[in-house]
């Protein structure tokens, strides 16, 4: 088992009066894929949004407890959130490329983070990121075309390329394939398998089969609580908790 990259201790999240997460203690291992599963509203997306402090943008949201990345508390108010988000990239349910060219979609992040000073440096980042996202061959001759003109699956890989362009350590994926067809999904899943060699990946998914295919560790959330976490194979063959079993076998009532 790899070393722990991200550690949450007694993490609680409140949206106003409503508590969305209850004392979540979860370790995420470096260069591994962790899948988070659970019914809608169970807190899995809220949890990953804590890892890059996306919840900061919601005024009524309050977070207690802590999350450490490489042993450093990220909820510290002195922490530079921009540089945190540089280290922790995110890919969303619906592909959301910028209304810009394919090239600009990738080069935007490195530019604002001061990572590509010259055109040739940016060219190199764009090519490397698109190659890593397995999109280079498909778009290399039309980098100046709008990103929004790509197919859904290509757009999602473009968003992944955009996320990795700033060389993050962690990639959060919130249902990245739910808007994609099976072939595009398969491509993303294959890509995830490749990306885990370099990055720590956390994926929220409603597809049990996808969780089994892509992850090494799975956590099951229900009503804001982490019910069970363990090796993916164990969770899907023989979970310890009855609630987990009822959920993954479709008996949840």
């Amino acid at each position, binding site marked *: 088992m790899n070393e722990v990259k991200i550690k949450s201790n007694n993490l609680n999240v409140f949206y106003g009066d409503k508590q969305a997460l209850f004392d979540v203690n979860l370790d995420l291992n470096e260069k591994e894929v962790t899948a988070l599963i659970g019914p809608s509203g169970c807190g899995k997306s809220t949890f990953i949004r804590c890892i890059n402090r996306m919840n900061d943008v919601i005024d009524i949201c309050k977070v207690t407890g802590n999350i450490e990345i490489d042993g450093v508390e990220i909820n510290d108010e002195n922490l530079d959130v921009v540089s945190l988000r540089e280290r922790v990239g995110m890919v969303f349910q619906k592909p959301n490329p910028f209304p810009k060219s394919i090239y600009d979609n990738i080069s935007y992040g490195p530019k604002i983070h001061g990572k590509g000073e010259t055109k040739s440096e940016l060219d190199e980042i764009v090519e490397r990121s698109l190659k890593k996202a397995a999109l280079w061959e498909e778009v290399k001759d039309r980098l100046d075309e709008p990103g929004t003109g790509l197919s859904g699956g290509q757009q999602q890989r473009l968003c992944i390329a955009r996320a990795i362009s700033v060389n993050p350590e962690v990639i959060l994926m919130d249902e990245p394939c739910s808007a994609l067809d099976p072939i595009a999904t398969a491509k993303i899943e294959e890509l995830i398998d490749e990306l885990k060699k370099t990055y720590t990946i956390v994926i929220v998914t409603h597809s049990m089969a996808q969780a089994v295919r892509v992850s090494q560790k799975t956590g099951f959330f229900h009503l804001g609580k982490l019910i069970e976490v363990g090796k993916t194979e164990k969770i899907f063959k023989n979970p310890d908790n009855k609630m987990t079993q009822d959920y993954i076998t479709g008996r949840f*009532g």
Partner: protein
Amino acid sequence: MSNEHTVKSYEEELQFLVDSVIKMGSLTESQMVDSMDAIIKVDKDSIDKIIKSDDEINKFRSKIDTQIMTLLVKRAPMAIDLRETISSLKISQDLERIGDLSKSNAKKVKPLPLDLPEELLSNLKRLGELVIKQLNDVLDSYVNKNYDKAKEVWEKDEQVDDLTYIAMESVIDFLSKDKKNLDFSTHLIFATKNLERAGDHITNIAESICYLIKGEYLKGSRPKGKVIQE
């Protein structure tokens, strides 16, 4: 399967699969009882019926295979449902093999003389009774999802091994007295061995049931009797 599936037809499909395995098990048990009876009574009239009943068992096996394929494709079962599906596949395979062995034993009745000495058959009869009891118990543990009972069957196979050894010895003794006995004694030796092999399939079924219930395989090696060791 305590709670019901959200999709009711999934629940029914799984139950239908389990019911098929139970029915197949009960057919296999009757066939074994009949074939043992035929040997002990040297009842040549029942041979055809027993051979025919094996066709029924084989049909069940194909039916179960189809049900399993459909379940896998339609439902992609997980956890307990996956284990239920996979153990049905394995148990039906073992039942089919037990059926083949009972059929093979029925065929061995044909060359037997009608006046077989009682003492020659008594050990074989004891062995047959034990294997039938083992099959009955293992099927019972499947129906009731009883882990302890399945494990008990698994451990008790040692007695099957020991009785096989004793039954073999009595046939060999008989054979050594007069070479004229060679032909049918050989058949009896094979019949004895078939029962021992049926016993092994029963332990496989017990293992599948334990895995189905707890999600882990029985640890350690199974106690083994005399025949296996020699």
